[in-house]
């Protein structure tokens, strides 16, 4: 197993070789996932792991996929999506053109959820959903819009709890063990790699969603990423975080107010 000290040795080497900076990640969960990777890949020593990571780029890419968390589901936290539907989307409807950024979108389930909400509000045609992640492989899955059939029951339950009134299965075609989502949804999505640690702002949005990403970052990195979001939000734009995340440690907090429902959604004051 890898010790904390060994992890501290490895992280600067990774920056030097690949430019990926994990030094702002919370250590307890990072070391846990690096150790899970170590066991899964049957490494015999820290030296072997380091050597393989630094000598073999595809092994390193695999490492990034494994040590970043890619667990997600459609309409995760249905109450949150209900609030998006009733409180936020009516505001977005007033814009001639809607730009939304899903930062750290993983395999895209939340992006498809958003597209469904917009479609039901009759707004999908004038919207673009930018979906980014540092991990290319999950973006390819997101782009394909093909998800395991086994998840559809949970997704459908969440959809109904989030106030959905259609037949959830009308959004996909079942094909053996997979559900292929309607291309009309993904046509409005733009997928791209983006590393919140090192990449900069690339557009301005009326809504940015970044849920269950900041929990993996230390306070400094959280503050930096929130500043990046601040730069990327229109005035009066909305920022949505995960159910256990907040802006409390960020210098930008005074310029935002949490919406009245107390969901984890903040609005930029000006």
């Amino acid at each position, binding site marked *: 197993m890898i010790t*904390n000290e060994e992890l501290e040795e490895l992280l600067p080497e990774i920056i030097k070789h690949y430019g990926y900076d994990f030094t702002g990640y*919370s250590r*307890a*969960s990072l070391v*846990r*996932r690096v150790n899970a990777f170590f066991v899964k890949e049957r490494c015999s020593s820290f030296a072997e792991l380091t050597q393989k990571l630094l000598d073999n780029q595809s092994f390193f890419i695999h490492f990034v996929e494994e040590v970043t968390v890619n*667990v997600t589901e459609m309409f995760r936290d249905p109450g949150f999506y209900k609030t998006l539907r009733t409180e936020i989307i009516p505001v977005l409807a007033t814009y001639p053109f809607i730009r939304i950024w899903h930062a750290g979108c993983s395999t895209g389930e939340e992006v498809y959820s958003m597209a469904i909400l917009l479609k039901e509000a009759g707004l999908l045609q004038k919207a673009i959903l930018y979906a980014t992640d540092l991990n290319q492989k999950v973006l390819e899955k997101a782009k394909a819009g093909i998800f395991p059939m086994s998840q559809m029951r949970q997704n459908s339950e969440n959809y109904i709890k989030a106030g959905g009134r259609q037949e959830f299965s009308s959004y996909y075609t079942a094909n053996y063990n997979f559900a292929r989502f309607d291309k009309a949804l993904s046509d409005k999505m733009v997928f791209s790699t983006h590393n919140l640690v090192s990449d900069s702002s690339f557009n301005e949005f009326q809504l940015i969603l970044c849920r269950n990403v900041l929990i993996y970052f230390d306070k400094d990195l959280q503050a930096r990423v929130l500043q990046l979001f601040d730069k990327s939000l229109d005035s009066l734009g909305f920022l949505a975080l*995960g159910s*256990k995340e907040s802006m409390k440690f960020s210098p930008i907090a005074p310029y935002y107010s949490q919406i009245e429902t107390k969901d984890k959604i903040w609005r930029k004051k000006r």
Partner: protein
Amino acid sequence: MEKETITSPESLVVIGGSSGSLEALLHILPLLDKRLHVPVIIVLHRNNQSDNGLVELFASKTKLLVKEADEKDMLQPGTVYIAPPDYHLLIEQDKTLSLDASAKVNFSRPSIDVTFSSAADVFGKNLTTILLSGANADGADAMVYVKECGGKLIVQDPGEALVGYMPRQAIEQNVVDHILKTEEIAQWMNTSLGFRSLED
């Protein structure tokens, strides 16, 4: 601004439980001395939709401060932290808390194994883990690791537990220090852990 006195705790108690352990906790909490000077973390399997009701319920049963664990919280002596639903709860070297929404472990999120192991990394011999009633083997594996790190292990008497499977799994690992009934668990905590002087 709220003021917090930051005193880094020396030791930690983590209590894990699954089905039947709510009852056990409702028995233990009222018996705990209000001067108890260690942080206590409770990791309870529960369904994802349950809200803060648990925090209020526990708070009504003890004089200790009860709160849902938030990421970056600094562990404070005399405070009871409840792991939030649908996240793993971990402890950083600086004794702050971290949350993790990665895959379930032993079909559970929060997983008792995850918190026990993480706590052992930071607190070593100053960690006490207590495993209560349950129908799941979560917690038993990490107890071996806690032992290796020098921590103390207590399980609820499987005969008393509503569901004895979970404590029994731990007992089978041959590492448990004490097998106690709920009343004895409270007594053990009141006599074996640190105290705050009674100036308030």
